[in-house]
């Protein structure tokens, strides 16, 4: 039956992509230099963040500014759970770490999962006031949420060591397997959601919420699912980030992080997971490349002072221009497979 053919062919292609990605991870971890590997680690983590941010923002169409909050939570959960008691007592300078913080220790894998789960639970509790109401409050609430998390991190030195942050977070060798592995799992999970009744319902909510309701979709439940799922993976991304950087502080999780992710998913195409992946690579490369704007330039014997913040000015202009003139970004709402499908229909 025609349905079966769709499933099998899709499955084969997906399997092929996953195998390629795994091979690439092995290749990179063993052959490329440290600097490149570090960049790939970074990109992998941002892919996780972008692809999950895209779920609530792009696929479900609910404008949210949550990433920096949940990334912070994930990072701190992993940091607290993986730095041992001795390390904490040594580091925590403002106040002594509280007893339960010292007691909480876990293996990286469990810490990571907990990071995701805690973020998801928090998202769930935020969902009740926000999605119950018809309104655009999600953005403001999540914006405020990000602020509050930072405030809490700074003002709870017995838990988080305040503005000093937490250092000496344990590293892991062959970290690329962790980050790429998590990235692959995230992308597969998100795509599985999108190509299911839940994903269809999310898109329906995005396209026309009233019509979705009229077709029996429980829009509150769908939005909550999307939001919590995004939070889950963002928490995990945060945890991975903590172990990559080995050192975190509240200043790492400002609104700029969310803004970066927003640009990424917009440029890639709001609603497209493939777009989010491409956007991540594109923007991270772009940010690196644009570093020169922030630094002093020597050009033809003329020296200009570096202007910190110029990168951000350029970035915000790019965002505005894309919104005005190229709203669909790179992929629009399509995934890679849709590009091929179109060709076949035209035959």
């Amino acid at each position, binding site marked *: 039956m025609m349905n079966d053919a769709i499933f099998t062919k899709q499955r084969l292609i997906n399997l092929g992509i996953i195998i390629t990605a795994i091979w690439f991870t092995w290749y990179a971890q063993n052959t490329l230099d440290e600097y490149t590997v570090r960049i790939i680690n970074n990109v992998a983590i941002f892919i996780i963040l972008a692809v999950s941010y895209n779920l609530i*923002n792009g696929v479900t*169409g609910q*404008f949210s*500014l949550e990433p920096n909050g949940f990334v912070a939570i994930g990072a701190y959960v992993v940091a607290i759970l993986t730095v041992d008691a001795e390390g904490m007592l040594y580091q925590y300078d403002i106040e002594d770490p509280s007893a339960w913080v010292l007691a909480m220790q876990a293996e990286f894998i469990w810490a990571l999962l907990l990071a995701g789960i805690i973020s998801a639970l928090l998202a769930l509790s935020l969902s*009740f*006031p*926000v999605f*119950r*109401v018809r*309104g*655009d*409050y999600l*953005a*403001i*609430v999540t*914006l*405020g*949420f990000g*602020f*509050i998390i930072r*405030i809490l991190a*700074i*003002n709870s030195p017995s838990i988080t060591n305040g503005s000093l942050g937490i250092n000496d977070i344990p590293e892991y060798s062959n970290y690329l397997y962790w980050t790429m592995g998590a990235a692959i799992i995230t992308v597969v999970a998100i795509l599985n959601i999108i190509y299911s009744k839940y994903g269809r319902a999310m898109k329906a909510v995005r396209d026309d919420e009233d019509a979705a309701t009229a077709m029996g979709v429980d829009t509150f439940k769908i939005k909550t699912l999307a939001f919590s799922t995004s939070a889950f993976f963002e928490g995990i991304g945060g945890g991975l980030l903590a172990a990559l950087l080995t050192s975190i502080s509240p200043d790492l999780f400002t*609104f700029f992080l969310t*803004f970066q992710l*927003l640009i990424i998913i*917009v440029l890639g195409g*709001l609603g497209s997971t493939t777009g989010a992946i491409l956007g991540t690579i594109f923007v991270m490369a772009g940010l690196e490349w644009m570093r020169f704007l922030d630094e002093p330039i020597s050009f033809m014997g003329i020296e200009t002072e570096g*202007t*910190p*913040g*110029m990168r*951000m*000015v350029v*970035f*915000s*202009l790019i*965002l*505005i221009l894309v*919104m*005005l003139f190229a*709203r669909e970004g790179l992929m629009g709402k399509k995934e890679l497979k849709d590009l091929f499908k179109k060709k076949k229909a035209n035959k």
Partner: protein
Amino acid sequence: MDILIFMQQMVNGFSLGSMYALIAIGYTMVYGVLRLINFAHGDIMMVGAFLGYTFMVVFALPFPVAVLLSVTLSALLGMLMDKIAYKPLREAPKISLLITAIGISFFLENAFTVFVGGVPRAFPVPEYMENIFNVAGVTFSTSSITVPIVTLGLLLGILYVLYKTKYGMAIRALSFDIKTVNLMGIDGNTIIALVFALGSGLAAVGGLFWAVNYPSVEPMMGVLVGLKAFAAAVVGGIGSVTGAVLGGFIIGFTEVVVIAFWPEMGGYKDAFAFVFLILVLLFKPTGIMGEDLEKSRF
């Protein structure tokens, strides 16, 4: 609790609340007509303060003149923002508008950081604003009296415009239904521009007052204040100007009074607005003035 200290805190609370109120009005009006949360609105407050600074420090103009010029220019900036970035997106999905608004906000903050520098500058507060006098043991500065009075005056002014003038009626009609206004023979876009002008002008006043009370200006000063002001607008009832003012006062008072009673909560001061926001959304989403936006009124 000492009654004098309490009175003192009331005065401070009024002052702070007024500034939040002024900025909240702009948020609520734009949301009322466009259903848009103008993220860049808080940054207009910053621009207003910086303009005032420039006029007074660079051009050595007297305070009242600087205020007038800043407010006018800010109003124009608001209209410009609408014309360049929001108007072209009138028919676009809402999320595009919100993203653009964030983009503009971020742009303003960073452009000012790049061109003016992130280091806070001292705002030249005119002497007469700093005059302190004592009434029955409570200290007032001129500014702590002027600010609430001016705010209430402006509020009454806006209400007058909204309820007693043709343009005001058009604004209120617009918050019901955009298409109707066009049918009435008034250009909806002109009205929207007017709303932006009014809201931005008020935000600039708020920014200038802020600079007078907390005399330092820096590019990020509008961020947190803007967030709280929007929370104030929601708490008071989004779409209602009176509600915005009420919400502003509530949040302003709470910040001042709670810190006075429990100074150890100082670090959490900025969280209160957010807590209020969540509470309102949980228990009375339409806010204090409680109009369902489906039949909204200012």
